[in-house]
């Protein structure tokens, strides 16, 4: 028996390849260039709509999408680092792609039509490792029915949220668990400066009923009246309103924190030509027009009117003090401090 085992083990040993990312071609599934694996964090209901345009233009390419929330997609990408399953990432937060980039998982690629992409919505390097398609920003979801019932004025600014009348009425994303939560906290710290920023967050914490581990949930909780005000993001607020929930979207007067839904090419041994075709399409005017039906700010400007529920000049709403690299560098420190201050807060009901 022993010699059989030895033989089997010996057969399994092989010379280690130079780089860990180049996979043994025999071990991965046979390369079928006409099928693509796309990881995305775009809203599920949007994907079908967007992809219909790709399918008519490239009927020969099968797109298999894996759609999960930003956190799960990012975690999946990182976990599969040694043998990436995805060919392309489509519509994932730029801050998440920065993490993947730090691990050397992304292949720089300049898609066709890159010159049309607004400068602040793409990686400044050339060729860029990530290219944005649209931007989203923090916004409050205010339940008008509950606000009326409780005789509360609709808040219009970050400063308003710390007023004593809103005590226990606010729900916010936990920045340690949600990108949207982190985006708001990081923008506040950059807008106000760190010291003032933390003072503000201390005051805000007095009014927060709970921090929830999701970016869209605060808005949902406001929509069902579980809490009156949810600190969430713009698309969710606009959608809640459109679907008949008594939600008013409020864009704080001081400005909103924001992030970019972006695309990137995954570095692997065999990069399929179809992956590049997909990335070219993903910033085409055709695709951008579809994005523009849902988002106020698109990377490629279109003639589509700004969807209902957004401010008239969405670009002005986005705070200029939003340095992704600063945020990425200081992320761990901010989260540690945040958790120390508010993480172990006991239930306030």
């Amino acid at each position, binding site marked *: 028996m022993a010699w059989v085992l030895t033989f089997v083990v010996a057969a*399994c040993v092989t010379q280690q390849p130079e780089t860990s990312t180049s996979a043994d071609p025999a071990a991965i599934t046979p390369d079928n260039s006409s099928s693509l694996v796309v990881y995305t964090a775009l809203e599920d209901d949007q994907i079908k709509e967007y992809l219909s345009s790709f399918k008519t233009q490239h009927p020969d390419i099968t797109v298999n999408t894996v759609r999960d*929330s930003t*956190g799960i997609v990012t*975690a999946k990408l*990182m976990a599969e680092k040694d043998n990436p399953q995805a060919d392309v990432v489509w519509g994932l937060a730029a801050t998440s792609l920065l993490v993947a980039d730090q691990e050397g998982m992304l292949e720089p690629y300049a898609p066709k039509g890159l010159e049309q992409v607004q400068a602040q919505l793409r990686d400044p390097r050339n060729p860029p490792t990530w290219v944005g398609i649209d931007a989203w920003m923090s916004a409050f979801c205010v339940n008008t029915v509950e606000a009326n019932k409780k005789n509360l004025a609709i808040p219009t600014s970050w400063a308003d949220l710390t007023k004593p009348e809103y005590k226990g009425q606010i729900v916010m994303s936990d920045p*340690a668990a949600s990108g949207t939560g982190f985006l708001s906290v990081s923008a506040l710290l950059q807008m106000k400066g760190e010291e003032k920023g933390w003072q503000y967050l201390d005051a805000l914490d007095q009014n927060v009923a709970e921090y929830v581990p999701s970016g*869209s949930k605060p808005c949902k909780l406001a929509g069902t009246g579980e809490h009156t005000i949810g600190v969430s993001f713009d698309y969710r607020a606009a959608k809640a309103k459109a679907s008949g929930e008594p939600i008013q979207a409020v864009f704080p007067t001081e400005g909103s924190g924001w992030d970019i839904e972006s695309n990137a090419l995954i570095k692997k041994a065999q990069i399929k030509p179809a992956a590049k075709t997909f990335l070219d399409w993903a910033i085409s005017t055709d695709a951008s027009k579809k994005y523009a039906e849902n988002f106020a700010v698109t990377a490629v400007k279109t003639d589509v009117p700004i969807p209902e529920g957004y401010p008239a000049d969405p670009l002005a709403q986005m705070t200029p003090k939003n340095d992704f690299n600063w945020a990425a560098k200081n992320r761990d420190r901010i989260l540690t401090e945040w958790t120390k201050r508010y993480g172990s807060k006991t*239930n306030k009901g």
Partner: protein
Amino acid sequence: MPGKNFFRVLGLLPLYIPPLAHAIGLVYLFGNQGLLTTGLFGLIPGWNIQLYGANGIILGLSLYCFPQAFVIMMTALRLTDARLYEAAEVLGSSPLRTFMTVTLPGVKYGLINAIFVCFILAFTDFGVPQVVGGSYNVLATDIYKQVVGQQNFSMGATISVFLLLPALFAFAVDRLINRRQTSQVSAKSVPFQAKPNPGLDRSMLIFCSLVVLFILLVFVTIVFASWVQSWPYNLTLGLKHYDFSTVGGGGYTAFWNSIRMSLYTAIFGTIVVFIGAYLIEKSKELQWLRSLNYFLSTLPLALPGLVLGFSYVFFFNKPLWSIPFTHYALVNPFNWLYGTMALLVIATTIHFYAVSFLTASTALKQIDPEFESVSASMRVPFYKTFWRVTLPLALAAILEIGIYFFVNAMITVSEVIFIYPPTLPLASVAIINMDDAGDTAAAAAMSTLLVCTSLGVRLLYWFLTRGLQKRTQAWLAR
């Protein structure tokens, strides 16, 4: 007591409900706008239990753990020896004394297992605290924050090692007690049949009804949630949320995938678990190996699914394992499994291995080893004893395990969310995604479908195996 089968089926109902739907049910009942909190929107006096926080977690976890304990206890109580009760009666002991000296010691093993299973489940579950926990922090949600929020796998894994500590403790206690455990069903034993006792039966009926009523209340709320237009402001009812074509997640394709996966898991899992338990309980050699196996079998219980999930990615997705200090690497012989249905089935089997294993081993422990001794002395080969004696005796438990695997595979999320491939969307993951996109009603609709499927399978199973049960369990009746 009348309606035993009714209670038996409904007692397991929480097991069929996806965790997220549980949360929807609880929030719609007890949340700030809940049906009970507002007293049906002001029709009757409201009752605010302050859901968000410890109250919500305890309520949610009690519901979640109930069926798990129920399965273990049912197996333990089913196999009791009537001779002991007869002896107690003849000796004139009071019912209370009989309960304390016969019933309790008889089910001691199952009872302790149930307590530990519930404790560990509650300790490691993050689904419930995440939704109704408010700002009440528990260790398990920290894993979610580390892994999903910050992609910090090593910290996530470190926290899960801490979660293993109570499992280690439970194992140690279990071994201590187990040493004194003797089998309940000896070759000479006579199955116990409860005698009618009007007072006791009536109070038990009330107790069971209350429990089932509460479980039903939550379930009915979920069904209700799938019908309403827009909770809580527009309560027009309709079935439009059952058309999944406008929402994401894969719709009915995902639903069929889930059914297939659950079926495979039920078959594959049950076989693996039972053989595993049989080898541990009924073989004689290699005591240390059996102890180790026993420990490893109970371990998955304490592993959070999320950690299990990403461990599977790390293990199966690596084409090569490098051998330290050399330039050589081992070709991963399991790499081809990555992204297949088979891996989903394996992961699900492992995730739910522990409770199934405990059920199987409780059932097997209660069968007298004398059967084996007699067979051995009569030169009956062990597989014949297994086939003719052990298997039929344990059939009830085996069927229970199959169902347990099926219903859990239908609703499980945490370990499959990392490894499901693009071509195989799953209904349980779809529920999370639909809810995430704000389509709570559609999520509730899909949950209702899953629950009805599990209930349907349960009833079908019961109907089909009734004849079989009657034959193999005939010795239980007199």
